[in-house]
């Protein structure tokens, strides 16, 4: 195949991330049957509140299906991925994930990110970037927030020569 660096963007190497920089990602996504109910069942989540439309009727969580929180987190991170991890070698971890408000089918999630920390890795060709991400619904209510550390290529080693 062609050089891997030609398949990914040139603005997301380790050297490009500065602590405090903030971005609102370009695309938002509506959570529907596929992102909510089907993925909850795909990942073996047996809690029927995620895929039984009538289970929660009359409860404080609201009627309809409530989306599995980690799927909201996954969509938020997915929407952020091109700007944060297109040149990643791997995901290292997550911390302080919080689910601030319920998400239902039909809600649309947009993603926001801030660089919390940058630092060396245990290899010379990459560094570690820690982000805080926010997932926000169509009414500007924060539904998810959390921190994520990613191992990201250094341009000095991986960029197009």
């Amino acid at each position, binding site marked *: *195949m062609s050089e891997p660096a030609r398949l990914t963007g040139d603005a997301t190497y380790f050297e490009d991330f500065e602590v405090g920089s903030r971005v609102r990602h370009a695309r938002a996504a509506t959570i529907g049957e596929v*992102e909510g109910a089907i993925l909850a069942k795909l*990942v*073996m989540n*047996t809690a029927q509140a995620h895929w039984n439309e009538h289970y929660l009727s009359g409860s404080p969580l609201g009627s309809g299906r409530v989306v599995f929180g*980690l799927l909201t987190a996954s*969509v938020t991170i997915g929407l952020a991925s091109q700007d944060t991890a297109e040149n990643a070698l*791997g995901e290292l971890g*997550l*911390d302080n994930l919080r689910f601030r408000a319920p998400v239902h089918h039909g809600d649309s999630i947009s993603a926001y990110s801030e660089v919390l920390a940058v630092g060396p890795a245990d290899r010379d060709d990459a560094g570690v970037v820690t982000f805080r991400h926010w997932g926000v619904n169509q009414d500007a209510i924060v539904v998810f927030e959390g921190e994520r550390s990613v191992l990201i290529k250094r341009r000095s080693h991986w960029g197009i020569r």
Partner: protein
Amino acid sequence: MSDFDPSAFALARRGHLYEDFEVGLRFEHHWGRTVTAGDNSLFTTATCHWSPMYLNAEFARAHDHPDVVVNPMLVLCTVVGLSVEDLSEAGGPFLGLEQCRFHRSVYPGDTLTATSEVVAKRPSQSRPGMGTVTWRTEGRNQHGDVVVDYTRTNLVAMRAGRT
């Protein structure tokens, strides 16, 4: 014409309640799950995570992987999913997840299993009839290697508060 009476059937309840959890209690969760290439492509595209490391096998091989890498968020969601019946299905909302580490890559065809231990519990101050329970969970591949671990906290219903 039907004389069907649903009240004549006992509910096959699933899951555990607050009183069932004691600090130190361990669970080996049911089923396991072989993650397929299809699972990875569906999950990764549906969550708008179009990274070539997860969707372009030639790109992944150029980074010394044998195949596409399974999206770590799919690995995490699957390990949590396998634990839901034992830990949180009968309970209440997911409150938070801490100290999650991805220890090694998962590839299509790998099989995930999950185990958990109760690390804390306390009655809720603000929600009578509920408590919070915290578990440490490990997800392993078919070789027994830990691929992901994390600490999760949920609100869990008490048996005492149940109608």
